[in-house]
Structures are given as C-alpha cells and as structure tokens.
C-alpha cells in the first residue's frame, strides 16, 4: 500500500514537473525544474529495479545535462545582452498563442491525444512480464568474465554497440568543436567557499568513480556511471575556476578523448587477427579485457563530459563575433 502510494506520487510528480518545465516562460526556472525531473526520474528507475539506469540518469540526466543547460543559458544571456534586438533573435515561448492558429493547435492536440491513447493501449496490452533475453544472458554469464549481467551485455555480448556509442561521444565533442572550437581561458578566481568545497569534493568524486568502475563487474556500476561521476568532478573544478594547462589541451587531451574508442578499435583488430572473430575475448581473459576497456572508457567519458561543459561555457566571444559579422 505504502509502495503503491509512493509510486503514484512519483508518477504524478514526474508529470507535474515535466509540465511545469515545458510551460515555464522563465528559462532558468525551466532548467531547475528539468534537473528536479531528472532526480525524480532516477528514483523511478530505482523503483523499477534498474539501479544501473538510475545511476546514469542521476549523474547524466540530472547532473551534467543540467550543468550544460545552465552554461548554455548563461551564454544565451550574454548574447542577448549584447544585441539590442536580442529579444526577437531568441524568443522566449510566450503563453499567448499567435492569432489564427486555433485550428492548427486544435488539430495538433487531437493528433497528439490520439497517438498517446494508441500508445497507452498498446503498452497496456503488453504482457506485464517479459523475459526477453534475460534467460539467455544468465546462461552465458559465466563465460562473459563479469558477474553483473548489465556489464556483461554492455561490454561483452553487445560490446559492439558500446564501441559505436563511444564513437557517438567522440562525435559529440567534434560537433561542438566544429561549432566554435575551444578557447583558452585564464583561471578565474572564485568565492572561497566554492574553492574549499571543490578541494574537498574532488578526491571524493575520484574515489567514488574508481569504486563504481571496479564494482561494475559484479554489481550496478561501470564505465558510464564512473565516467559521469568523474566528469562531474571535472565540471566542479571548472566551475571553481580551474583551467587545464595549455600543454594539456593539445595531444594529451586528444589522447584522453580517444582512449576508449581507440581501445575498442585496437581490441577489435587484435581479435580479428588472432581469433578470426571481431571482439571475441578469450574466456579466461575476458574479465581483464573488460576492466581495461572500462577503465579507458571511463577516462574518455569523463574527459568528454568535462570538455563539453568547458566548450559550452567558454568561447561565447567568438560566437557573438560571428553573429555581428552577419
């Protein structure tokens, strides 16, 4: 009964937060609501017995995405302040619908309601419990080198998908760089509280990341969770004014960004040459190979997330300069 009440509250809370976030005319408020939504969503995943997803949702969905959104908002503010006509360049959604669009709005609402109803019916009609591939995964878990079925699927059974996902992360950085690149910025002094806090928290974050990485072999955790916690440490350091040295921003940065993807590629080539089978690990070595892959992937994920934050929060000078040229 208590669980049922909690789940109901959670469900309605999620819907309410989502609606408020979408409907808010103040972008800052919308982002804060979005972060709260992410945290509640993580709770929902816990209730659904998916702690791995919950960890990722809390760290990436609520934490890093929130930080990126706030950084983007700060930049948007800086741009509109410089532009006199800024308000028209970046319209904030207004509560009033434009005139004459009542018919199309009505049609849109009708279409959306119909598709939501159809989807709800389809989901309702599904069997409440489906085994899917979990029996298959359990049967082969002993050969996978790890004890956590989620890690076994991500790094072994479907390691090829994860390899491509690492490329997606790399592509995200390349995409952001192609938009404006990364500018060097001097260190900024910040409030003493933030500095003390980051000094205290960074080692804790690193320790937590290492724990998540190690424990991922047998319990919820793994490269994505560890990487996002480590990335959060990086964001915290960047927020407290720390900037990596110029030398570090050249090939060491590129090496860290490509470490995870590169490890997958090299392992793929090696297994193809030696075993004639792409990404097939020898059973005896599988555990060690997965740990190696996950460690390098953790570094890449963390650096990717921190660099995305740095790229979004820096370099709005060049961007607005381009706008003026046009």
């Amino acid at each position: 009964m208590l669980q049922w009440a909690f789940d109901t509250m959670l469900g309605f809370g999620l819907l309410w937060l989502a609606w408020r976030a979408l409907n808010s005319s103040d972008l800052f408020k919308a982002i804060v609501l979005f972060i709260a939504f992410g945290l509640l969503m993580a709770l929902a995943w816990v209730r659904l017995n998916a702690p791995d997803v919950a960890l990722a949702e809390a760290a990436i969905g609520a934490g890093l995405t929130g930080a990126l959104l706030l950084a983007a908002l700060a930049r948007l503010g800086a741009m509109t302040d410089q532009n006199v006509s800024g308000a028209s360049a970046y319209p904030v959604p207004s509560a009033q619908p434009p005139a004459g669009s009542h018919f199309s709005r009505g049609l849109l609402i009708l279409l959306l309601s119909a598709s939501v109803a159809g989807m709800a019916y389809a989901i309702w009609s599904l069997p409440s419990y489906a085994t899917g591939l979990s029996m298959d995964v359990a049967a082969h878990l002993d050969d996978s080198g790890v004890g956590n079925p989620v890690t076994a699927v991500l790094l072994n059974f479907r390691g090829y998908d994860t390899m491509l996902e690492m490329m997606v992360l790399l592509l995200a950085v390349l995409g952001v760089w192609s938009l404006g690149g990364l500018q060097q910025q001097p260190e900024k002094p910040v409030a003493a509280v933030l500095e003390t806090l980051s000094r205290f928290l960074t080692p804790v974050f690193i320790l937590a990341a290492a724990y998540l990485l190690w424990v991922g072999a047998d319990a919820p955790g793994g490269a994505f969770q560890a990487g996002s916690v480590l990335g959060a440490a990086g964001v915290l350091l960047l927020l407290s004014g720390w900037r990596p040295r110029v030398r570090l921003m050249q090939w060491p940065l590129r090496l860290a960004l490509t470490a995870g993807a590169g490890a997958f590629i090299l392992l793929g080539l090696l297994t193809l040459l030696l075993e004639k089978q792409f990404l097939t690990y020898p059973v005896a070595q599988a555990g060690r190979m997965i740990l190696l892959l996950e460690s390098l992937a953790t570094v890449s994920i963390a650096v990717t997330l921190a660099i995305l934050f740095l790229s979004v929060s820096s370099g709005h000078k060049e961007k607005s300069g381009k706008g003026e040229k046009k």
Partner: protein
Amino acid sequence: MSSLLAIDWGVIAILLPLAGGTACVLWPALSKPAGLISVTGVVLAIAGLGWRIMENGIYRHAVGGWGAPLGIDLFADGLSLIMLIMTALVGLGISFYARRYFSPRDAVRFWPIWLFLLAALNALFLSADIFNLYVTLEMTGLAAVALTALTGRIDALGGAMRYLLATLLGSLAYLLGVALLYHDAGSVDIATLAQRIQPNAAVWTALGLMSAGLALKTALFPLSFWLPPAHASAPAPVSALLSALVVKASFYILLRLWLELFGDFAQGASMLLGLLGAAAILWGSLQALRQTRIKLLVAYSTVAQIGYLFLIYPLASAGNGIAAGMAAYLAFSHALAKSAMFLAAGNLMLFGGHDRIADLDRAVQRLPLTVAAFALAGVSIMGLPPSSGFVGKWLLLDAAMSQGRWDLAVVMIIGGLLAAGYIFKVLGYAFTQAEVPHDARAVPAGMEWAALLLAIGAILLGFMASEIFALIAVDLVVNADEAGTVWTA
C-alpha cells in the same frame, strides 16, 4: 586466393574508417591523407565483400562470437551490398572533391566527422539487429548534423539546429518502437523477430512509431520541412553526402523492416506511404521549379526523388525481391546523380561567389565540365534514356501499369516533366549572359572531374541494371558442403 576470400571484409569496412577517424582526432595534421586512405580502403573492402558474397552467398559474422539473438550479427545480402557499394563509390567521389574544397581549418573538422559518418553508414547497412540499427542511425544523424554546421555560418547553424531536432525526434520514435517490439517478441534480431511477430496492438504501434520516425529522417513529404534548409546551407560536399547517402540510411531501415517484418500485414500502411510518396513527387518538383537558387532547387528535387522511393511500397505486391531490387536501384541512381548535382552546384557557387540561377552568366563556356556534370545528372533525374534514372523509373512505371495503378503512373510522368522543367531552367541560364557581369574565381580541375565522374556513373548504371538485379537475387546459393570446400581450397 581463398585466404583473401576468408577475410572478414565487412568488419574491415567498419573498423577502417573508425580507425581513420580516430587517427584524424589524434593527429589533425594528417587528416586529409588519413581520410583519403581510409575511404579508398573502404572501397577495396566493399569490393572484397562483394566478391565473397558472390562466391559464398549471404555474409554473416557473429560479433563477439555469441551469435544472434544474444549477440549482434553482421549481415549482408544483395540489398545491403548494393547500398554498401553506393556508399563506397559516392563517398570516394565526394572525398576527392572535398580534398580540394575545404580550407585547412575546415578540413581538420570535416575529415574525422566524415569518416565516422562513413563507418556509421557501413555499420548500418551491415546490421540485422533493430537496436544496433538504432545506434548506427543515431551515429549517422549526429555526424550529419555536425557536418551541416561545419562552416558556422548563421544560416547553416539554423538549418543544422532544425535538422538536429527532427533527426532526434525520428530516432526516439524509432527507439520506442524497438522497445515495444523487444517487449512483445523478446528479441532485437530481425530474423528472430520475423518468426515470432504477430500483428497485435504493440506491433502495430511499433510499426507506426518506427515508420513515422524513419519517414521523418528520410524527409518523406510532409515531414520534409527540415531538409531544404539543412541541405542547402551546408558546404557542397556535405550537401552531397546528406542528399545522396544519409537519407538513404533511414530509407533502407524502413525498407528492411517492411520486407522482413511488417510487409505481410500492413497493406493499408503501404498505401499511405505510397500516397505520401506521390504527394512528395508533386510538391517537391513544384517547389524546385519555384526556386531561384541552385542549391535550394537541388534540395527540393531530393524531396521529390525520395517520393519515387516510397512508391515501391504500394507496388511491392510484385514480390519482395523485385521491390527490393527497384528500391536499391533507384536509391543508387539517385545517390550518383544527386551527389553530382550538388558538387556541380558547389563549383558554380565557388566560381561565381553565389548560387543565383538567373546570374549563372555563360557558365557553360567557362565551366564546361561542371555544366556537363549537371546536365548528365539532370538526364538521370528527369528519367531520360539511357540513364539509370530512366531504367529505375521505367521499372516503377511498368509495375504501376501492370497493377492497374494509373494514378501513380500519371504522378510519375508529371514528376518527370516537372523535373525536366527545373533542370532546363538551370541549364538555360547557364547558356545566357547575365545582365550584370560578375568576377569569376578559378575552380580546381579535380573538383570539376569529381562531379562529372559521378554524373557519368549515374548514366553508366543504366547499362548495369541486370547486374544489380542479379545481386539482389543473391541468396544462400552455396550449401554448407560446398561452402566447406571453398574454405579449405
């Protein structure tokens, strides 16, 4: 020889561009050579894969050694192979164009993203797993958006943003369909799903979500609103990649799902897709006719030509093999012609500093190769013999008439006439003198030849229709024993 045949060319076609792209990130100074070597290597790998498929039948490789449905299988039959050949050849042409097109600053950004896009396309055409298809689709979409925004110009950023939102919405709808199918049938492997799937509410919803998402990503009218600004504002080689290859990726997934999973029970939905295709032909062609800029004209022409691809669905009752063959052939033909057109448009833009059709100012005298490329590609788009566009559209017309679908046949003919209208509009201005003369800049010969060779490819493909259809018919031609003797020989 047999040792060459035993090489897993499919895996190499994915790994090579991934390694090349990663190398570009690590050593930006080596981007261009790394890019050209990788793209050439992919062409060789696809040739090897084609040879292997001709000898041994369908290609299959169990990644990780697990085998579907637990693991992921790479899979290539005739249809996949044609799409792979299309990607490799068109990609090679565009790469040699891009070699001269980009400034050193933009080249460093272009090559790694293009190589990852190439890897994603190869992986997509080699996939037989609906979740793996999602991953490759997402990778394709992100790379395409990043390429669109490459120049950082305001219009390119606007086009890219719109493209990003459309492509993400499409992927999410597709992913929701994947989740429903997995919950319903307990597998993400297409072959396993095909055995288990029954038409019920979940499957119908998945069909609707996946088809809508993929149609959005393929820019099927009226979901094509994002295509013209994105394709017209991107740099010329990127426009060529987007129009020739990227929209074909989502089209291929839809076609594959339809052939293997949904086609048997979704006749009504096939009719709807065909109807939208017919509307796309008319609307896209009329819009193309109205444009005053070449790149927008070519982009709207893509909207129209995508419509032809969707006419396959209502006409597919002729049999899956023939439908797949027509779709693959039309897609290949369009990829060659449209890439040539965008590259030619890029040359005209570089030459005159603008792409206003009315001010082409005797381009035919000053850039004869480029105008020839545009004209030859136009011949294929209009569907005049002996081009591949003619053969593809003729087969489609023949299927429509033999099934009594006169409405579709009429739309196809009108579409051809409108295409002739917009192509001759460009060519006409290329022969006349503009009122105000413009300064002209030199265009490197390599860029002119890249466009021309792709256009010649679109014509030559017209003579190879029987070979393409023979490839589609590739099945498990060799039984296990014979395969064994091939391996040991």
